[in-house]
């Protein structure tokens, strides 16, 4: 029972409390680039979660035999191979979505999130907890991507998964799409607002200030 609740904690911790995107600000390059529609965000989330989980499992299995000097290369090679395989599968079975994701599937290799988890967790734990942790982090990343992707598609096009939700003004409805939502800056704004919202809700996530403005310093003295 104790073991089970520990896995549960490892799995749910990265969802909000230790969310890799909103707390650690890892992997935001792809989070910003592929969230114009919910479908691409979802595909990217699934791909990343699968790659992350498998990589964590593999690296954790051979963790006792990875020479310290070449450990990063070994990890990158494993992650890159998994990414290529996933990319090939997407190209074969989901050609449309694979085109929409273009280079970003390949960029999973360099996603800090993947290397961060394999380096920080999988290398020191047995395969099962490592995979659970990786899966939880994948879900945390997916959660953020899906929220941002959903908001951008909803307000940018009035659609969700390509289905019309808000009737467009052009077609006699009332909703005028916010084209800004489809551009990259809006992803920054939404992510910023999301981080803000999470940190208001959970103040313990706010980082300590690195610099104190001179005015405040004087006031404090």
């Amino acid at each position, binding site marked *: 029972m104790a073991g089970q609740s520990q896995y549960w904690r490892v799995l749910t911790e990265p969802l909000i409390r230790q969310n890799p995107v909103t707390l650690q600000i890892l992997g935001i390059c792809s989070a910003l680039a592929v969230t114009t529609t919910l479908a691409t965000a979802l595909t990217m989330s699934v791909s990343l979660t699968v790659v992350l989980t498998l990589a964590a499992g593999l690296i954790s299995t*051979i963790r006792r035999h*990875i*020479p310290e000097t070449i450990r990063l*290369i070994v990890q990158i090679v494993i992650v890159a*191979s998994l990414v*290529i*395989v996933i990319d*090939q599968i997407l190209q074969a*079975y989901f050609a449309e979505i694979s085109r929409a994701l273009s280079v970003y599937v390949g960029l999973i290799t360099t996603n800090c999130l993947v290397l961060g988890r394999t380096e920080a967790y999988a290398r020191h734990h047995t395969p099962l907890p490592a995979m659970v942790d990786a899966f939880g982090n994948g879900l945390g990343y997916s959660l953020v991507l899906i929220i941002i992707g959903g908001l951008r598609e909803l307000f940018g096009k009035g659609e969700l998964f390509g289905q019309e939700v808000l009737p467009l003004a052009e077609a006699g409805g009332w909703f005028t799409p916010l084209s800004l939502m489809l551009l990259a800056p809006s992803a920054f704004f939404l992510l910023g607002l999301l981080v803000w919202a999470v940190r208001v809700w959970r103040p313990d996530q706010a980082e300590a200030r690195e610099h104190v403005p001179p005015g405040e310093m004087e006031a404090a003295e």
Partner: protein
Amino acid sequence: MVERDPNPWRRFLALPNDSRAKTIVVAFLVSAICAALVSGATVVLRPIQSANRAAEEQARIEALVAGIPGMTALLSEAGGSLSTVVIDLGSGQAADGITPASLETALADPANWTELEPAVDPIGLGRRPDYAQVFLLRDAADQVSLMLLPLSGQGYGGRVDAILALRGDTNTIAGIAITGHSETPGLGGRIEEAAWQASFPGTELRDAGGEMRFRVARGRSSTAHEVDGITGATRTGRGVTQMVRFWLGPDGYGPLLDAIRRGEF
């Protein structure tokens, strides 16, 4: 001292992690296994991917044809679909003994490619196939009224593949479809958007003196020979300009266009 393990694998695993032998063997094993995995996936999935690409190209050609004003009417008037011809780019005539089905095999042979001199090769193709598959549509008088010509060139991020629809006067563009590119999404990648491609129909390649004038403008097009440029994608635009100029020039489809103008085709 413990006795020597007879199993060499276990002996290897027992080596200290940072010994040189173990480092090299682990690196080798990891690369070998990963290489096998990647090659396996590529080989197993290639047939499905090429079928996807072929279907996609077919759909693009259909969309291109459907997007040209009056095309659907022309098609039904011509009483059928496009005819597919493999042409010999050097002579501009239909190629002997090569059908669309055998084209791929023929192009696998390096003898069927022509090396390009750097002077005539501004797009850096290096070599050009001697045969190309084109699609022709004939009108009631059996004259070519529209041709679809596949092009390939170099953009900013890599190769750009396109199909250009040209009217029977061999000078007026009827449309373009980008069938493959690796340009930056949101910048050069916008060449695949219909909004950009919409500025192609009606653009003329040459002026009255027969000089090639086609150009992707910087900003809005100002003459009949220009199409609109894309902000932030100057090099992609230049790549498209050079691609169209090369392929419709004397080293590309020039001989074919001459033959069509002479009414020989």
